């Protein structure tokens, strides 16, 4: 539905997959603690070893969509350097959405994991 939310620029992960991952990934990062856009993106890079690469700006429409659907809450406050920053926090609705998406992703990876080793040996070799 929101396939274009984050534009895919890297070479390692298919863009539809990236789009599908985007919202659970952001919710999970916010479940670690409140954060703001720039820090969220840094965390994404860290988690993916730089294999997921998005154009940064696309994070914001996604955050606004999560806010509109009540999964995150946003507040302006001052950064340590004194600049205004928009901090995002996950809500209870966001947590249950995250739990739900986590269950779905686990089903997906378990299903695929059951067949990878038998039919496509080596395809999972680390890049």
């Amino acid at each position, binding site marked *: 539905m929101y396939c274009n939310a984050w534009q895919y620029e890297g070479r390692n992960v298919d863009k539809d997959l990236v789009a599908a991952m985007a919202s659970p990934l952001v919710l999970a990062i916010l479940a670690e603690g409140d954060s703001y856009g*720039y820090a969220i993106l840094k965390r994404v890079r860290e988690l993916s070893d730089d294999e997921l690469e998005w154009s*940064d*700006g696309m994070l914001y429409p996604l955050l*606004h969509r999560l806010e*509109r*659907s*009540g999964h995150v809450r946003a507040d302006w406050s001052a950064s340590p350097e004194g600049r205004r920053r928009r901090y995002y926090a996950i809500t209870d609705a966001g947590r249950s959405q995250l739990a739900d998406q986590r269950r779905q992703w686990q089903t997906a990876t378990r299903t695929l994991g059951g067949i990878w080793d038998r039919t496509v040996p080596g395809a999972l070799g680390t890049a």
Partner: protein
Amino acid sequence: MSTAVVEDDIAAWRSAVTTGGAVTSADADELESHLRDQIGELRAAGLAADEAFLVAVKRLGRVDVLTAAFAREHSDRLWKQLVLTHTADAATPARLPVRMGAFAVVAAVLLDAAQALARFTPAGEVVLRDLGFFVLPVLAAYFVAVRWTPWRRVALLAAPVVVVAVAVTLYPFRPGGDTELLVAAHLPVLLWFVVGAAYLVGAARGLRRMDFVRFSGEWAIYLVLIGLGGGVLVGLTGLVLAPITSSAPDALSTWVIPAGAGGAVIVAAWLVEAKKNVIENLAPVLTAIFTPLFAAMLLVAAAVYAAFGVGRDFDRDLLIVFDVLLLVVLALVLYGLSARDPLRPAGAMDAVRTTAVVAALLLDLLVLGSMLARIGELGLTPNRVAALGLNLLLVVDLAVTAWLSIRLLAGRSTADRLERWQTAYLPVFGAWAAVVVLVLPPAFGFA
């Protein structure tokens, strides 16, 4: 490269991002904060200021892609700039007003034809009943024409109009009977839904039902404004011409006013799209003024009726008044929602709106109770079925709206959820208007 030059670059980038209206100033603040964080980090890594700026901007993504992504997410903001893109897309921007003018003339001529039919043929009352057919299909056709709606979709839009027109023409109504009056009252509602379909179906971009709600409210405001101006013009013309010819005022009210009204329907629709920012600023103000006033009035009315009970004189006329009142409240709520920024947390206006909805719900329950008592006492008539159906629909709508509004105030639901309920429920009213127009007359023997 000095930091001052980078400040200029940032300002230029910022104004490029906010052009078009999809990215608000607050969004730009957020993006700019991101940009500065990135520049700061790159400079700390040893890049020069201008290099850091270029890399940071590249990482944020191309401005057009970025604004398009914001526009997709905030399609309510897109509303403001449909016209800009329309004229930008069209090869000849001047064509839009020309088509508008042509359709306005058609509507004006049709209404004068209706007037002629009403005055000089025995079909006077029939014309009055079918008045909606003389105007609203023209408005729907106008949207089809300016949006280049594909023919297959046009056929889908025209089919219901034709079916209803044939049915209403063939039905052997008893002249002046209840069912005929009900059809007269519900036909415009039904046709307005066809206009809505034409408005949404042909749109180049994904417009939502809420956009048509917004259109309807702004169209009504423009129509009233044009009506006021037109009234002054016609009144003065009559006064100026009166000394010369005594028949001038009569001719004006017979021929000029209907034609002007027909044309105004199209012109108002064109103005809504062409001059969006004018009314867009006015309509939320009007809603903000009248929602609290209606809330207070409804509270007083609910308290009075709760204290003194429903008198015996709660008759049909009063029921109609109440139905109109409840519909006005619903329209205010719907319109207030459409003008509301979905991201804003619940505020005082939401509390006022919730009060109005709860008071309206109480009043509607009173109306329903009284209506059921009448029906139990006197049996079903077409009028009572139509009123009962409308009030049942209203009670359901108001109850769910009240529930969702209270949850919104408690921070347990979102404005988006409330908006989705309202827009999802709208077609139910159209379906009910269709039932009243098509099913009720035969069911009651066209009485």
